């Protein structure tokens, strides 16, 4: 069937801010969808609150609303735009849930809007536990048997029926408190009775325990004619028990014989056909490793993180095909763009193996619990492709940017074998490295398997790497041995370290194409991965497609992590587009399967590779580019600068030397001195002693951080000697190559500027002012454009300084500068001669295509010829407020107190004509409840904040809230005329803070403290408890004030206009 003629205008709902579990994969999907629908001549209306996405670019849809993803907003937009259909399956769980609500309320029917891709019945069958179970039973597909019981005898009887071990899950206890695995009747008696007692409604779920089974996934696509194909199978290295987002995953499945494979494939097809999904779907199975028994774990009737991975792993664009199906096409009508000859109705055949490796935020949240389980904790992931598992795995560990060149983790080296064996029992982010170390210590494969249940196949493959390490360390490094090591993924540097010898003859990687069909058909995809074979398909491709254009490589930003998010992918994609428009061939190197930049039809060629110097060298060898770009790929790309410079590669834009001048403390200080621009006093130290001494000289509070960091990694404000010592102990645990920087901390207004510079002129699209005073990382601050409180004189100074710095640093392209305004004076805090996380949103609200201009400038154009003028752009009619979004509920024991170290995972934008409305929208979009639910606010702040908390508390009182406060705060408030009730600390006698949280009467918590981070600290525990109860926790007085002001507007979303940013 061709395009349905009853579809003309489609509303596409995005997934909102990046949070753990819902990341850039939905920008990738959404972008594909918008492009596909537009190509079919449909009018597209897009709603997404996330401004850092490609999909919210003005060119992606006919109407683009960066508005909160809530029901009132969607209703309002539907009424304004009158779309005939909604595509609910492309924006993750967020879009699916919202669409369901709209349908169930009857709103869609009333407005004559169709749901495409999945009906409410379909979604219900997949999402509702009981309906899901019923559906599976009706088609004979096994579910994990479980039963809700309220007494222990029923529990025992059910366990007898399904067999031990069983999992006990008490109802309504937080984080599964009181649950556990029972392997015998005796254990079930104990765990079951305990669980019943702990459950407030005396109810437990008894479930067959399948942890340790293999976890297998299938990505499936079905069309309206019931044509069904499976795109990809995936096998989790970590067995059932670890969330698939936290698992190392390989594609295709490798330990299944054809019988098991077809059994699960058929099950997937039966399920999608029973559900009636028209589009993409994901099925997860648990497979007993000892027989053919299996059970369905989960089904997602929409595109997902796994479908993004499957798309990149196979070259099959699932989101694109799914959206074509949603508007009426069938699989046999959709051309496979990879081959250009065949149709989308086939199953990709792989001739390589893919390894996906998660990126966790534990390097940021040093005190967070690292245990992996059913709650996903990874912020991002990388993918590596190889012709051997070993090679793909070695590439993957290079991609995750833990500074690893192999699976050897330094900190495990000093542990004794008993400890290593003990550690195997801990299922955490480092377990794969523990397995590797265990193998090295001679712990048997069987023992490792028994403990971890990681299939022996994987353990044996890891052992192959160890064998190679051993071989390399013995005897002469022959060319043959060297080549074998390369095929297993070893870097030259590692080979040389292990063998003590240089390779006889250096080998560069050659490249193979990802073509969906294992070379059965000629393909045109410019999508490559490295191997160590003779034939180099990338080189052939370049020769055959010679355009005579100059070639430019854009280095991407790798995995999404806190501090380096989707914004950098946005910049990389725009750079590629600008290069292509300017008549260059643009080549991208990146390894993140979730992103738009790694969609193979974005660039002229895509290399899916680690971003280390050696990996890059081989690409340079094959491509022989005219130039390279490093300024858009975050620190990942910037890190390559020195290496590229030493190789004599032409770096477009700001030179390596300038980058160094901005990052090297001493050079930077000299530069500022030369420009006559002040910065907060600062010093350097390598040791704890020196740090304490320098801090004392500067006077507390001071800011401590390592040089060369992004996202304020490992940055703290020290209020006294103990803070410095605690910090230095953590930092010096790993070798210090660069000094720790110690700066006088100035608590003033923070201002941020992105500018494009060409060496002579500069252009500032807009100045951004932060609500939170300096000390809160800029990425975690609410940022406002245009600034609201700065005097003209200060603005002029900022513009003046920006120009001076850009010129002095000889910036060519983008620069991001952070200032602090303290006692009426402007100080420079940081200068980053590269793209920043504010670029996407400021581009959208100012209508200045920043990356495009920066790219052109880097290629040699002059700002004066580009039509956007110079200096600072005039302010527009709109106020835009960027509000950070955090993923704290998913990270146990991580302190949510904002500080100089970045903690947010994503952001939303509120946009309107005035600050108050924009801020209100931003806060709603970020998930704050802006109306009274409970009846009180809890305030507990450090002494220095007490004066400021008085007017704040009064605002909450004015709004109608009762104030609870801990003793010191309460007394202070009373003394200053604000009524408040005393509540004890969370472990004190009742009424304590925990009691308050449990009753649900507290809507907001305002909590600041001088010391933090450690989970044992009182205030940290209290805040954690609030987060677990889903209570908004404000740790900066400034944020709290902004929120209180918004509340006092006493408005709802119904009162506001929706802003189509295409029109601004």
């Amino acid at each position, binding site marked *: 069937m061709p395009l349905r003629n009853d579809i003309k205008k489609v509303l596409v709902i995005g997934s909102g801010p990046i949070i753990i579990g819902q990341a850039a994969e939905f920008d990738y999907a959404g972008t594909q969808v918008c492009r596909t629908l537009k190509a079919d001549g449909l009018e597209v209306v897009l709603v997404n609150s996330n401004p850092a996405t490609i999909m919210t670019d003005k060119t992606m849809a006919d109407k683009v609303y960066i508005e909160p993803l809530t029901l009132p907003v969607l209703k309002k937009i539907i009424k304004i735009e009158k779309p005939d259909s909604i595509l609910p399956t492309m924006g993750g769980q967020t879009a699916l849930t919202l669409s369901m609500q709209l349908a169930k309320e009857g709103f869609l029917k009333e407005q004559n809007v169709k749901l495409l891709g999945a009906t409410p019945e379909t979604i219900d069958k997949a999402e509702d536990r009981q309906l899901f179970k019923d559906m599976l039973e009706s088609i004979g597909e096994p579910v994990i048997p479980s039963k809700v019981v309220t007494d222990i005898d029923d529990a025992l009887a059910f366990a007898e029926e399904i067999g031990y071990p069983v999992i006990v899950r008490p109802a309504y206890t937080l984080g599964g408190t009181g649950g556990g695995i029972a392997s015998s009747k005796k254990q079930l008696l104990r765990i079951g009775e305990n669980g019943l007692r702990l459950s407030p409604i005396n109810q437990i779920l008894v479930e067959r325990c399948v942890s340790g089974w293999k976890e297998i996934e299938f990505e499936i696509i079905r069309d309206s*004619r019931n*044509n*069904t*194909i499976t795109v990809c199978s995936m096998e989790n290295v970590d067995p059932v028990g670890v969330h698939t987002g936290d698992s190392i995953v390989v594609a*295709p499945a*490798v*330990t*299944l*014989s*054809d*019988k098991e*494979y*077809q059994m699960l*494939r*058929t099950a997937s097809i039966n399920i999608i056909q029973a559900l009636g999904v028209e589009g993409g779907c994901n099925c997860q199975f648990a497979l007993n*490793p*000892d*027989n053919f028994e299996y059970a369905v774990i989960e089904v997602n009737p929409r595109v997902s993180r796994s479908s993004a991975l499957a798309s990149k792993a196979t070259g099959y664009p699932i989101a694109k095909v799914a959206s074509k199906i949603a508007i009426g096409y069938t*699989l*046999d009508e959709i051309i496979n763009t990879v081959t250009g*000859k*065949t*149709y989308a*109705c*086939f*199953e*990709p*055949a*792989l*001739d*390589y*193996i893919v390894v996906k490796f998660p990126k966790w935020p534990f390097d940021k949240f040093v005190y967070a619990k690292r245990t992996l389980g059913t709650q996903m904790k990874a912020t991002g992931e990388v993918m590596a492709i190889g*012709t*051997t*598992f070993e090679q793909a795995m070695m590439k993957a560990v290079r991609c995750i940017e833990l500074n690893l060149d192999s699976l050897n983790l330094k900190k495990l080296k000093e542990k004794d074998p008993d400890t290593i064996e003990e550690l195997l029992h801990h299922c955490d982010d480092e377990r794969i490295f523990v397995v590797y170390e265990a*193998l090295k210590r*001679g*712990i*048997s*494969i069987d023992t490792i398997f028994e403990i971890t249940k990681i299939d022996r*196949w994987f353990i*044996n493959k890891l*052992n*192959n790497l*160890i*064998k*190679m390490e*051993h*071989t390399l360390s013995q005897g002469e490094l022959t060319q043959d041995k060297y080549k*074998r090591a390369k095929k297993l993924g070893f870097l030259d540097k590692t080979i040389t370290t292990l063998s003590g010898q240089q390779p006889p003859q250096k080998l560069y990687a050659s490249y*193979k194409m990802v073509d969906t*069909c*294992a*070379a*059965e*058909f*000629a393909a045109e995809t410019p999508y490559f991965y490295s191997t160590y*074979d*003779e*034939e180099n398909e990338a080189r052939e491709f370049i020769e055959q497609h010679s355009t005579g254009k100059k070639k430019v490589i854009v280095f991407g930003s790798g995995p999404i992590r806190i501090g380096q998010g989707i914004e950098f992918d946005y910049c990389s994609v725009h750079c590629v587009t600008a290069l292509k428009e300017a008549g260059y061939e643009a080549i991208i190197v990146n390894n993140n399967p979730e992103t738009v930049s790694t969609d193979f039809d974005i660039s002229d060629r895509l290399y899916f590779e680690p971003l280390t110097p050696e990996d890059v060298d081989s690409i340079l060898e094959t491509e022989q580019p005219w130039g390279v770009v490093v300024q858009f790929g975050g620190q990942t790309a910037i890190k390559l600068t020195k290496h590229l410079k030493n190789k004599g590669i032409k770096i477009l834009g700001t030179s390596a030397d300038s980058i160094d001048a901005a990052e090297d403390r001493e050079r930077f200080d000299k530069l500022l001195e030369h420009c006559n621009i002040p910065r907060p006093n600062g010093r350097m130290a390598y040791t704890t002693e020196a740090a304490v001494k320098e801090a004392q000289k500067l006077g507390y509070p001071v800011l401590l951080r390592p040089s060369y960091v992004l996202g304020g990694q490992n940055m703290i404000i020290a209020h006294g000697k103990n803070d410095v010592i605690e910090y230095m102990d953590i930092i010096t645990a790993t070798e210090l190559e660069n000094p720790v920087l110690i700066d006088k901390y100035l608590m003033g207004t923070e201002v941020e500027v992105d500018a494009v510079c060409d060496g002579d002129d500069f252009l500032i699209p807009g100045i951004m002012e932060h609500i939170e005073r300096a000390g809160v990382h800029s990425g975690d601050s609410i940022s406002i454009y245009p600034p609201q409180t700065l005097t003209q004189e200060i603005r002029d100074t900022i513009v003046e300084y920006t120009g001076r710095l850009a010129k002095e640093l000889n910036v060519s392209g983008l620069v991001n500068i952070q200032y602090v305004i303290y006692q009426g004076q402007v100080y420079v805090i940081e200068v980053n001669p590269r793209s920043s996380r504010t670029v996407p949103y400021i581009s959208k609200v100012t209508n200045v295509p920043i990356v495009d201009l920066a790219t052109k400038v880097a290629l040699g154009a002059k700002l004066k010829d580009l039509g956007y003028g110079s200096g600072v752009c005039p302010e527009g009619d709109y106020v835009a407020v960027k509000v950070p979004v955090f993923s704290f509920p998913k990270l146990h024991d991580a302190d949510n107190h904002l500080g100089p170290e970045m903690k947010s995972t994503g952001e939303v934008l509120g946009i309107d004509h005035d600050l108050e409305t924009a801020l209100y929208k931003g806060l709603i979009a970020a998930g704050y409840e802006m109306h009274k639910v409970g009846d009180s606010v809890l305030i507990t702040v450090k002494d220095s904040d007490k004066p400021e908390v008085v007017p704040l508390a009064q605002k909450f009182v004015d709004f109608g809230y009762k104030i609870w406060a801990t003793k010191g705060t309460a007394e202070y408030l009373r003394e200053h005329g604000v009524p408040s009730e005393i509540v004890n600390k969370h472990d004190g006698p009742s009424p304590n803070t925990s009691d308050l949280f449990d009753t649900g009467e507290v809507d907001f918590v305002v909590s600041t403290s001088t010391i933090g981070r450690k989970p044992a600290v009182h205030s940290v525990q209290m805040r954690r408890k609030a987060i677990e109860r889903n209570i908004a926790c404000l740790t900066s007085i400034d944020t709290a004030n902004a929120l209180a002001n918004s509340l006092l507007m006493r408005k709802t979303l119904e009162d506001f206009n929706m802003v189509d940013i295409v029109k601004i």
Partner: protein
Amino acid sequence: MEHGNHLTEKEERKAYLILADGTVYQGKGFGAAGTTMGEVVFTTGMTGYQETLTDPSYYGQIVTQTFPLIGNYGVNEFDSESKKSWVKGYIVREWCEEPSNFRCGKTIDQYLKEQNVIGIYDIDTRALTKKTREHGVMNGAITTELPGDMDAFLQELKAYTIRDAVKSVSCTDQRFHQADQQQLHVALYDYGSKENILRSLLERGCSVTVVPYNTSVEEILKINPDGIMLSNGPGDPSENTEPIAILKELMNAEIPIFGICLGHQLLALANGADTQKLKYGHRGANQPVVDTVRGRVFITSQNHGYAVVGETLNQEIGFVSHHNANDGSCEGITYHNGRAFTVQFHPEACAGPLDTKYLFDTFIGLMKQQ
């Protein structure tokens, strides 16, 4: 150093893959040692290597696996599609020394040694596949010793052809298989039949008499079957003059016929259509086939180097019911007599998707109707 795990890498012996055009790939040997010649083909299936090795349709061929990691789950005693391996040689990128699966009985290396199949690994199988794709199927040889006189060797290699394929793989005596609850009785012509055709019939309540490829119509009628099944098999279909003659006659008997792969081609030839050699065939588990009657596409398992030329089928006799979604080639014929239908692909799967196994039910329906 004390160490519980093996630290030494596997033993290696050099081996060479020589193609008829003179290309020599150096790799390493596994399985049996020696020299072998055959027609080099590739299969894109990512699982099911054991089924591939034991599929009689590969008679005379050296099989290349495009998936690089082969032998991951070892070889077991259940999944073979015939009693032995019929391939003339085996080409992989990497074979797995330490397979892992609950049914694993031995490594693929052990199995190939037992079966005396010469294998070569550490070959750039993608480069080889591309060459096969561009050039068309080519003869090749795997050898552990480079020939002294290469020219003479290449002459011999070029001259190699697969002859008497069906005769070589077919059974020689009739054999009866009793279904648990017999409802029907099927005569299965064994042109190199895969076990799963037999299993698929048995599990649907059909007892089966497997008969040699040249069993006469008379003898078939003696068995008094409810239906006749024509199996898959190797080689050039047009060579099989004797079976084709038999099938011509059988078309007139009032018995339903269901043909798979070679069986499909032979019945088409018997009805006056032509077959042709495909450039490099269809071998894998991901071939999309359009069922024009149902208006749907099915993913199928395939293994064939020849195909029926759909245009040559007399439209009064039958029509092309299935075609390949990629290249449009004929994938199935339904005959107007209402009794016979055949498909080019493998509804019995093994290896491959089970999506078209309903065709066996169609066959049973036909038999019951009669």
